[in-house]
């Protein structure tokens, strides 16, 4: 295979990286004044990457001797990542113009582009080292983004915490990778799968250890219990658009990465990793739900909500079937719409001076002061709780369906019963907005783009999504099958 073909398969990443490098130069010379131009160019570059995906980049080719896979699975994840990254760029100007002293700088969109490029490499990795490089590129951009409000102590704290714990997790992951390499003699997923393809009684202790460490490292990136501790602090401290990016694009990348490693590299050891995944899933659902109950800050609440949701997505992975993987992808697609919508509403929460507010109490009586916004947030919350007829129900439906199909009935029954706990805190937000007396109002939505995005997410969740079940299901199943 010649270099031209290889490069064509990685075209979306090339568009993003080259675009990011050029824009970095532009912002270095253009300074603060170029922010607006750089932002919109970045959105165009993300759009270009999306277009590039339509070509051979999603055709199922293997580039660079198996290091990089451009299959339908990666393409599905990349579409979600790029859309989320574009929205995170579009959200930013509105947020930063209201923060005191911390302006939006042209580096912000560049870092988002780099993070998206890293996420793309993560989901396309066909080798443990590609995986690691992609993960680090994505993480380094994220650490900087988390501290983007330099005058805000919470933002700095978030970045520092994220960096230290992220480095620790990278270490754990790298340690696992080295053990796997040591016992299988390769870092290519295909070779690793061959090493794991022995009867489970004969699986060497070394490979088992490697598996556990790799999964632990990935669980950190996923924010799955017991490696979730950083999430609430980082989500609370980071600027809201960055939090939205973490909760959506980064989450999708981590989930897709986990699925690919589990199925492609360690598929034959299904029995071994299924136990880990089931534990992480149930523990995340319980902790995400219980810990969220006492939260007073909406961003922290959404952080716990993201932990909770990862738990549900992992139930689909535990099934270990093409249907299960397809369910995970569908789950993430719907999850992104719900979460992005929620963060866009959080962005509208500010007092009349324009200072952002994050307390749940400030939502009191919003159904009377800002009925449309309250209705949208109610849709997002009830959808996250999985109450039909909102489309969030469908995401839970497909993962539980996959679990039942795989014969994991007790897991499905326990998981779904636990989702009632989660429903409680989502309902609390609805209650605050609809039942409580108004406590001052937020100023109207100024940005037409933000208003439009909120409306689009809400309408997607009901009723448009229901009519997309057939294409979404077919697409995610094609994507899932490319792993098996």
């Amino acid at each position, binding site marked *: 295979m010649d270099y031209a073909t290889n490069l064509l398969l990685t075209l979306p990443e090339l568009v993003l990286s080259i675009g990011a490098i050029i824009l970095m130069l532009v912002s270095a010379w253009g300074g603060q004044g170029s922010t607006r131009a750089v932002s919109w160019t970045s959105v165009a570059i993300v759009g270009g990457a999306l277009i590039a995906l339509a070509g051979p980049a999603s055709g199922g080719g293997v580039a660079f001797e198996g290091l990089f896979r451009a299959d339908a699975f990666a393409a599905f994840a990349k579409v979600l990542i790029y859309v989320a990254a574009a929205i995170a760029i579009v959200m930013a100007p509105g947020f930063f113009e209201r923060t005191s002293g911390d302006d939006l700088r042209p580096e912000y969109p560049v870092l988002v582009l780099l993070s998206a490029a890293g996420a793309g490499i993560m989901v396309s990795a066909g080798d443990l080292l590609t995986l690691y490089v992609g993960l680090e590129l994505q993480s380094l951009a994220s650490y900087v983004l988390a501290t983007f409000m330099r005058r805000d102590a919470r933002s700095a704290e978030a970045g520092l915490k994220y960096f230290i714990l992220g480095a620790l997790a990278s270490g754990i992951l790298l340690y696992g990778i080295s053990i796997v390499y040591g016992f299988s003699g390769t870092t290519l997923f295909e070779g690793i799968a061959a090493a794991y393809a022995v009867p489970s009684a004969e699986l060497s202790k070394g490979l088992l250890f490697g598996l556990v460490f790799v999964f632990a490292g990935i669980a950190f990136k996923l924010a799955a219990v017991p490696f979730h501790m950083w999430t609430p602090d980082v989500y609370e401290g980071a600027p809201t658009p960055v939090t939205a990016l973490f909760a959506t694009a980064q989450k999708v990348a981590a989930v897709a990465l986990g699925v690919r490693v589990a199925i492609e590299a360690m598929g034959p050891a299904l029995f071994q990793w299924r136990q880990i995944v089931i534990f992480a899933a149930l523990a995340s659902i319980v902790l995400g739900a219980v810990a969220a109950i006492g939260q007073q800050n909406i961003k922290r609440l959404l952080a716990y909500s993201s932990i909770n949701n990862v738990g549900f997505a992992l139930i689909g992975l535990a099934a270990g079937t093409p249907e299960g993987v397809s369910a995970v992808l569908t789950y993430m697609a719907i999850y992104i719409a719900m979460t992005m919508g929620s963060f866009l509403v959080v962005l509208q929460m500010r007092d009349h001076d324009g200072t952002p507010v994050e307390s749940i109490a400030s939502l009191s009586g919003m159904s*009377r002061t800002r009925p449309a916004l309250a209705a949208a947030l109610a849709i997002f919350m009830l959808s996250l709780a999985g109450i039909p007829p909102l489309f969030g129900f469908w995401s839970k439906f497909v993962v539980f369906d996959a679990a039942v199909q795989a014969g994991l009935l007790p897991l499905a029954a326990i998981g*779904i019963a636990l989702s009632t706990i989660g429903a409680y805190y989502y*309902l609390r937000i609805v209650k605050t907005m609809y039942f409580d007396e108004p406590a001052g109002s937020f100023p109207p939505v100024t940005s037409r783009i933000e208003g439009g995005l909120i409306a689009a997410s809400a309408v997607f969740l009901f009723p448009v999504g229901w009519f997309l079940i057939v294409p979404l299901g077919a697409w995610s199943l094609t994507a899932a099958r490319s792993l098996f």
Partner: protein
Amino acid sequence: METFPILSLMLGIPAVAAVACLFASPRDARWIALGATLVDLALGLVLWAGFDPNGAQWQFQEFQPVFGRFAWALGIDGFALLLILLSVFLMPICIGASWRAIEKRVPEYMSAFLLTEVLMIGTFAAQDIFLFYIFFEAGLIPMFLIIGIWGGANRIYASYKFFLYTLLGSLLMLIAMLYMTRTAGSTYIPDLMAYDFPVRAQTWLWLAFFASFAVKMPMWPVHTWLPDAHVQAPTAGSVILAGVLLKLGGYGFLRFSLPMFPEASSELTWLIFALSAVAVIYTSLVALVQSDMKKLIAYSSVAHMAIVTIGLFAFNRQGIEGAMIVMLSHGLVSGALFLCVGVIYDRLHTREIARYGGVSSVMPTFAVFFLLFTMASIGLPGTSGFVGEFLSLMGSYQVSTWTAFLCTTGIILGAAYMLYLYRRVAYGEVKSEEVRAMPDLTGRELWLLAPIAGVVLWMGVYPESFMRPMRNDVGRLLARIERATPHGDSNPTPGRGAPAAEQHASAAHGGAH
């Protein structure tokens, strides 16, 4: 069978009206809601007129496979028809009852009610198991808002309790549904009703459905959300809750538990009978000591619903027909009783029984209606309550004499608490000037209560109108569950009267006179 999609139209009209209400002024919202519910009532009557009791089991069918894994499949049989009629009949009355009582956030209120109507009709008409689930579960959202926004002082606690109780029950049912559709390879309810699930699995599936329907019903000991929700809900909310939402549980047993898991139903009949017998006696005693009118009626609902469950699980025609009639009758009667409470609550703003007294001398017309509905609740012959309770108890007697005995005490206790309530409210001295100043029914209130009174008497005197549409469906259900009929302990011996042919002749002779 491609016909005019009348069921979709019945769902579409209130749905469109619900959206329209949100953008209308309070005055317009009331009229839009009333108009939409009346149109739905008219369509419901068209449905009744067009329903052929001797025709196919499923009529007015629609099928659009738009959702991939499941379909937009609608269709009704006799059971569904009757319950849809009950819903569309009560809806305009609810809107009327809220005409003046609701003053704040009227457009949203009307919208929530219309949504509830859509979801209730959808639940009864759905022919796809997941479509059913979506309608069934979605009904929680508008009811949560109705209780939480327009309810009484302790409304938030009640709304949470209502939501989470019913949600937990339903989620287990969803897992059972996933398993069933995977095993049977179909999501179409008529297919599933004819599929024989392995007997071992049936027990688990039955229990999962039971978890959901027992909460909705509600059966003792998971009934505790009901008194809270009723007391806190606005009058019309209580009417809908008692009138229609409680029927979802009974409908579920009838549509899913019995025909899909006949063996499990038969094995677990003891559970239903035991819980029902406890419910009848216990909740009747609790009702006896209530000082809040709405709470008293709420507990009486639990007792009445227990009569429904014993009838359903009697595995014979009397029991099932009786259970259906009790459901319809209870929907009308308890709805009307809540309206009666609403009428005097609007005047005195308290539900404390002790604050009233002598109402019959200041509000004679009201007292007449209140008495009629009290009697119907007790089950006086001539009212709808008698027909249903009598049939239901007769059916259960054939299976378990003890259950029938214990549940019949509920009728006596029912008479005790309802008459005691009536005496304290309507008779005696007029205690306070406030009570003396209460005006009698207004024209609007009269128009709310009179139609219900009419139907209650109609059902009591000529129940055939309501039994005919479901007769064949009961027959089909019995043919399906016959093989599992539990052994009865009543051991009836054949009578020593005239041979059957002569009996027929004498009956015909008697009928001629």
